[in-house]
Each structure stands twice: as structure tokens, then as C-alpha cells.
């Protein structure tokens, strides 16, 4: 674990992220990544935010949530409605913040009663909750019902997508590598032991759930301000399952796995775009095969760690060095 904010690994990470950003920006400017591929990349950014935030709830804390699309819808509609009234970045910021507040309140309402219980009550409650959100949106005037919102200003640009994605990944990984994160992993490992070690299990489950919900609403908000149109049909149960598939596919409890799975599935979706119906069948089949042959996901709980990688390289380099000296 890095000892302070300016540790070697943190600096290298910052450089890598900036280089990636510069490279992608350059490719977009030069037109090598055309607008179609751009929208694919933006979708992947949104999916990464959703996948890492759901992984925090499902993979790290072990609480099975099926309502991620609901929180996403809250964020999307908050941002959509407000930016239609105030079509600038202040409006968007306000929309995102309003989305945060509403999704926090909603997450607390759903989670406090259900997370006190042990077992799968959360899955059922969140499933119901996200359907309630969708039906509400479908029947409210302010959301323009089933027809959906149109003409939302396109405020989200590539830097915003990238920044939000990195922010979400950073929030989730910092959370995991801290005392609250350890508490959540402990709850996932053994709830009785966790409680006996002084961990208020309900509190930490609710914290993880709320953080996940807030990030989902962020994903919804930046999505709303990119695609012009919002309809309740975008936030069905299928959307929640889509996100869950990424988490399970990558490996529950590993953030790097969620990122990789979100990218892979994003690319897969691009190629399967003509076969929308077939896509769900392929997903289903893939999940079944996965559960049979590799239930822990592609990467399991393996987490990419720059620190460990550097140490390995160092060890290898010094090994080579000493061997050379020995033979020399």
C-alpha cells in the first residue's frame, strides 16, 4: 500500500492516465477515431462507471443489488430536466448534484430496512425499487411520460466522460483500500465474524450501497447529456442485468476486472449491434457457461497492482544484474 499521496505508484498512475487521455484525444482530433467509434468509447466509459460502482456493492460488500438502472435513471432524468431549463455547464453540475441527493435519499430508503436483514432481500427490494422508479418516470408530467425527454443539450464531451470514469474508478479503488473497504470485504467474507470484530455491518453495507448508487446516478447524468433523448425504456430490468453481467463476467470483487469486462462487452455489443435480440441470448449462454466453468469470473478477485508489478520488475532486474556479476 502506498504510504502517501505522492508515492511512486500514484505518480506513475497519474502519468499513465494523462498519456491515455492525450492519446485518445489526439486520435479523435485527427479523425482516426470517427464519431461512431467515439460513441462506442463513450458508452464504454458509462459502462465502466456502472460496473465498478455495482462491483462495490455486489463484489466487495457481497450485497446482491438488481436496481442499478433505477439509480442511473434518477441521475439521468435529474440532469436531463435541469439542463433543459438551464442549458449550460452550471445546469449540468446542478443536475448531477440533484441526482446525487435524490439517489442518496432513495438508496437510504431502500437499503436501511433491507440491509439490516441477512440474505437476498436486497435483490428483491432493489429489483422492485428500480421498477417503481421506471413506472414513476413513465407516468410523471415533468419527465414527459413514456414518450421521454427530447432535446437535452449535448453538454457531455470526451474530457467529461474520461474525467468521470477516472473519478469513479478512483473512488471505488480508494474505498476498497481503506478501513471502510476492509469492513465491507469482511462482511462479504463472514458477516458474523465481522460483527464480532466491532464492525457495524448494517452501517457499512448502507455506505457501500449509497456510494454505488451515487456513482450510478453520475453515469446516468453524463449519459443524459450526451444522447439527446431519454426514455423510461432505457432503464428496464435488462439494463441492471447488463451491468451485473459485466461485474460477474469480470470477477466479483476486482475493480480491474470490472473495467476490463466493461471494455470487452462494450466492444462485443458494437459487433452484435445488428442482432439485438440475439445479444441477450449470447449473454445468457455466456453466463451459464461462466457459472459452470469459471464461477469466479474471468479474473476472479485478482486485482491489477502497479506496485506489485514494479516490484516484480525490480526483482527480475536485480536478479539479472546479480547473475551477470556472478558470471562476469
Amino acid at each position, binding site marked *: *500500500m502506498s*504510504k*502517501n*499521496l505522492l508515492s511512486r505508484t500514484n505518480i506513475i498512475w497519474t502519468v499513465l492516465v494523462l498519456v491515455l487521455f492525450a492519446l485518445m484525444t489526439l486520435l479523435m482530433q485527427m479523425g482516426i477515431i470517427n464519431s461512431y467509434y467515439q460513441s462506442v468509447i463513450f458508452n464504454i466509459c458509462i459502462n465502466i462507471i456502472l460496473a465498478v460502482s455495482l462491483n462495490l456493492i455486489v463484489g466487495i460488500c457481497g450485497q446482491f443489488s438488481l436496481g442499478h438502472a433505477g439509480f442511473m435513471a434518477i441521475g439521468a432524468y435529474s440532469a436531463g430536466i435541469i439542463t433543459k431549463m438551464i442549458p449550460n455547464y452550471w445546469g449540468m453540475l446542478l443536475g448531477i448534484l440533484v441526482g446525487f441527493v435524490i439517489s442518496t435519499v432513495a438508496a437510504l430508503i431502500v437499503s436501511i430496512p433491507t440491509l439490516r436483514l441477512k440474505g437476498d432481500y436486497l435483490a428483491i427490494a432493489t429489483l422492485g425499487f428500480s421498477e417503481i422508479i421506471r413506472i414513476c418516470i413513465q407516468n410523471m408530467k415533468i419527465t414527459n411520460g413514456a414518450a421521454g425527454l427530447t432535446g437535452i443539450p449535448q453538454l457531455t464531451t470526451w474530457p467529461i466522460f474520461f474525467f468521470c470514469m477516472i473519478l469513479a474508478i478512483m*473512488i471505488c479503488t*480508494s*474505498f476498497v483500500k*481503506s*478501513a*471502510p*473497504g*476492509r*469492513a465491507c*470485504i*469482511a462482511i*462479504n*467474507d*463472514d458477516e*458474523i*465474524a*465481522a*460483527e*464480532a*470484530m*466491532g*464492525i*457495524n*455491518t448494517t452501517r457499512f453495507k448502507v*455506505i457501500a450501497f449509497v*456510494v454505488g448508487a451515487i456513482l450510478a446516478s453520475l453515469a446516468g447524468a453524463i449519459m443524459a447529456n450526451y444522447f439527446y433523448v431519454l426514455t423510461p425504456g432505457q432503464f428496464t430490468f435488462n439494463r441492471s442485468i447488463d451491468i451485473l453481467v459485466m461485474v460477474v463476467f469480470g470477477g466479483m*470483487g476486482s475493480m480491474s476486472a470490472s473495467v476490463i469486462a466493461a471494455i470487452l462487452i462494450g466492444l462485443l455489443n458494437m459487433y452484435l449491434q445488428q442482432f439485438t435480440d440475439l445479444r441477450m441470448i449470447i449473454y445468457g449462454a455466456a453466463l451459464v457457461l461462466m457459472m459452470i466453468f469459471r464461477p469466479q469470473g474471468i479474473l476472479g*478477485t485478482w486485482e491489477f497492482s502497479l506496485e506489485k508489478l514494479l516490484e516484480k520488475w525490480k526483482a527480475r532486474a536485480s536478479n539479472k544484474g546479480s547473475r551477470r556479476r556472478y558470471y562476469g
Partner: protein
Amino acid sequence: MAELLKVSSLSKNFGGLAAVSGINMSINEGELIGLIGPNGAGKTTLFNLLTGVYTPSEGLIELETTQGKKQIGGLAPYKITELGLARTFQNIRLFKSMSVLDNVKTAMQKNVGYGVPSALLRTAKFYNAERWVEEKAEEYLKDVGLYKKRFEAADNLPYGEQRRLEIARALATEPKILFLDEPAAGMNPQETAELTDLIDHLRKKYNLTVILIEHDMSLVMNVCERIYVLNYGKLIASGSPEEIQNNEFVISAYLGEEI
């Protein structure tokens, strides 16, 4: 010696079965108490009542705290742990996906001293607290002799070491009273002897009151100052090891009565 924990007419019923009934105990500061009894006597149930896993059907559990006597029966386990009671488990319950070190760190939750905002913003407070937690956790691991294995997965440790890690983890909650549920189960005589020394060492170092459930009589008779004997959910005897060894109720509970 001041009284630290007082249990009065404590009972727990599961449906029609009285797993534990009418237990009265008084535990003084710094004592090492043994809790013995045949299988199914209610020893673990009693532990679960004392540490909050079960809510008592009847009776009081009073703990001497800095704010005077406090009734802890029926409180949530984490609250009881915060008040200074820690335990190990009969069937080992480590956090299997974590490293040995992280297992201990996790148990230091109440003293970490920073919240989610500091963790997410990676403030100086976070780094200082984490450094302190790590040093402290390493110290606990040195106590139980697992320092060298601190980066190993807890699940990969051999059985005896897993038991010692459970003790280190319980210590990390900074308890006043440590409950050990069959710490020597599955150990060979050599390991049991080492464990006896370890318990003695930790008790002195951390000024602990220890209550242990054990079937290994060599351990119980060697280290315990006072012993409570349970049978069919009732206390049948209490006293020094010599008194217990010669108590007729205890002998008949273990060996059966003469016909």
C-alpha cells in the same frame, strides 16, 4: 480485584429447549476463567449470549465500564465489542479472502479514526491513521508469532496458525475481556503447550481477563484460576481446578453416575 462482568439468572430458550438457564457468574478483573462441560452443555450458547450473537431470553449481563455498570445483554455484537469484549470462534471464522495482516487491521475498526470522506479524498489523516494501524497490527502479529506470514492469505495458514490469527484479530479490538472458544481444538500436545504460554503472555502484556471454553483438560487445569462447569445448560459447579477435579457433580457429569 474489582468485579468486571456479572451475569445474573441468564437464560436462553430455543423453542421449548432451554439451552442455558439460570446462569449466575461473577468475573473479576484479570482472572483467567475456564468454562467446561460435556458436549451440548451450552458453553458456546453462553458465549454467544455474552458476545451478543444471541439475545438472552431472561437475565442480565452487566459489564463494568468507565461510565459505571452497563447492561449489555441483547446489544448488537459490534457494540459489545466496542465496549471491550472480544472473542474467537470454535469453528474458525477468519476473513478468508484477506491477507493475515488485513485480518488484524479489519478488527481495528473502532480505533481507525477516519471516515469515508477521508478515505476517498486520501487526506493526510488517512495516511497517518493507516500507518498507525499497520504498525499496531504488525505488533499484534508479532505477539502471536505470525509476523513473518503477514502477507499470506489467511486461508492458506495451517490450522494452528489460523487459531492464533483469530486470537491476534480479537486482540486488535483492544478488549478488556477475551473469550476463547476452544482455542486448542485440533492441536497436538506441543501446540497446546505453546498456546498455554501464549495465553499467559498476552494476559500479562495486555492486562486481559480471559474466559476460555476448552475440552483439553491439561490446558484448563494448567492455566485457569477458576473454573465454571456447565451441564444441560445449568451451572453445576465452580471453583479452583482442585475443587473441580474432586467435585462429585462434575465427575458424574463427565463419567456418569454409579448404578
